[in-house]
């Protein structure tokens, strides 16, 4: 089926096209030619005017989120490769020694299982690899704020309560002292 690429540069839109995972713009997404009328309808509904539809020569669909993932992968993949090679060595060593000590083998397999479980729990944020990059991208999705051409008229604000400044001061002093003394 003929593939096309939808490129939306406008920031901050949340697009839901049937058959494609919802995405936030700016984004570049692979679409089917047969879906084109539907895509155009959705874009119109979302008031997206700044977009391009171009032929897609790539075999893999492209989205903005994929490069982030790919950037992270080498580091984590290297670690997993090293772990895999270590495990292979350990297992082959066990086999070559043809140890009859089943308790020893069981213990080693137990350790290997624990290592594998640990690798399952790898979280990029926990080891501090991906976090700044993710935040950077999150930020990119937020549209620039421009108030220069906007004017507010009328008063939508109501005063609903008058607080006791003494109560606030007392609470501040107590909170400050607890924070200083680690909750004691």
């Amino acid at each position, binding site marked *: 089926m003929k593939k096309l690429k939808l490129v939306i540069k406008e920031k*901050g839109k949340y697009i839901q096209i049937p058959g494609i995972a919802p995405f936030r713009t700016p984004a570049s997404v692979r679409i089917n030619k047969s879906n084109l009328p539907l895509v155009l309808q959705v874009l119109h509904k979302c008031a997206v005017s700044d977009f391009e539809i171009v032929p897609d020569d790539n075999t893999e669909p492209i989205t903005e989120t994929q490069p982030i993932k790919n950037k992270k992968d080498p580091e984590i993949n290297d670690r997993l490769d090293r772990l895999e090679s270590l495990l292979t060595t350990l297992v082959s060593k066990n086999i070559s020694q043809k140890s009859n000590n089943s308790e020893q083998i069981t213990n080693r397999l137990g350790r290997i299982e624990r290592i594998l479980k640990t690798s399952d729990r790898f979280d990029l944020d926990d080891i501090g690899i991906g976090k700044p990059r993710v935040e950077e991208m999150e930020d990119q999705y937020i549209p620039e704020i421009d108030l220069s051409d906007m004017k507010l008229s009328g008063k939508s604000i*109501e005063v609903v309560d008058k607080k006791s400044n003494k109560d606030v001061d007392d609470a*501040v002093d107590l909170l400050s002292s607890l924070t200083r003394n680690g909750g004691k």
Partner: protein
Amino acid sequence: MSEDIVKDETIKKKIKKDSGVICVGLDCGTMHLVCSRSDTDEVRVTRNVFLPIDKDDISINKLTDISYVKTEDDDIFIIGSDAFEFANLFGQTVSRPMERGLISPKEISAIDVLTLMIKDLIGDTTDKDVYCSYSIPAEAIDEARSVTYHENVFARILNNLGVNHTSVNEAMAIIYSECAKEKFSGIGISFGAGMANVAISYKGVEAHTFSTARSGDWIDKQVAEALAMIPNRVTNVKEKYMKLTGEVTIKNKKTKRILEALYYYHKALIEYTVKKIIEEFDEKVDIEMDDEIPIVISGGTSLPEGFVNLFKSVISNYELPFEVSEIRAAKNPLTAVANGLLIRTIADVKGK
């Protein structure tokens, strides 16, 4: 200006208390934006809703006494309570910058309108250093939605307004506001429009926080679906007539049915939240709390008369993993979060 903006922990190092500083607590709720400032005893609020209207549909002259934002292209957005009233009048649904407790992906293009509303709410800060704690929900345990984007949108808005900012959990703000006499130990629950936020605090230290995606909007939606009507109508009846004392004095048959349904769904919401508190406490809280702790209930959804008594009645059916000294409502459920945030901001700024 952006170079002067100080984020998060660096607030603590920035300044000593002086008259050129204003501290702000900003409660960014789904239904209301509430602001409490250190230089005034007034707590200010605006409805966090707007209504885009077609410039051909209405003339500016007809918008006297109405709060609205007008763009250079003559786009008009009625904001605050007026938007709600206009929408009810014309049977439309208001647009909401936030949805179920978080910034709405559908309305992100309205971020400029939201920024103007927040600017107006905070008020004049000319020639002042402004430090603000703004509320964020905890991650929801029953829905996979991240709060990161929401947090970053408000950070950008405050950056744009030249305000130094840090985010603070909404339910912890209730603890700061309402639990000074218990040395900030307790369970704070904020039943907002979009989410129910819970914080378990021990001597001012956050032991655990979580949120659920069920609160006021969930009630309205369930009732609206059950009775085949638009949620706006349900919200309207709820805010005008709702009492959770069990008695329904309204004669109008349709309104009476709405009120009865609202009662059942309030009860269901409380049941759900109490069960989640018990589960989370059992699984996630490591601190041994020997002392009795209070439960403080706040948020717009807890405003109807009888809510706290209904909560007491529901929770009495459960065996709790902690001892409760008292279940009480916040002094002002609408402003407690903003006041708690203000206390936290001043403590951060003053203590450095």
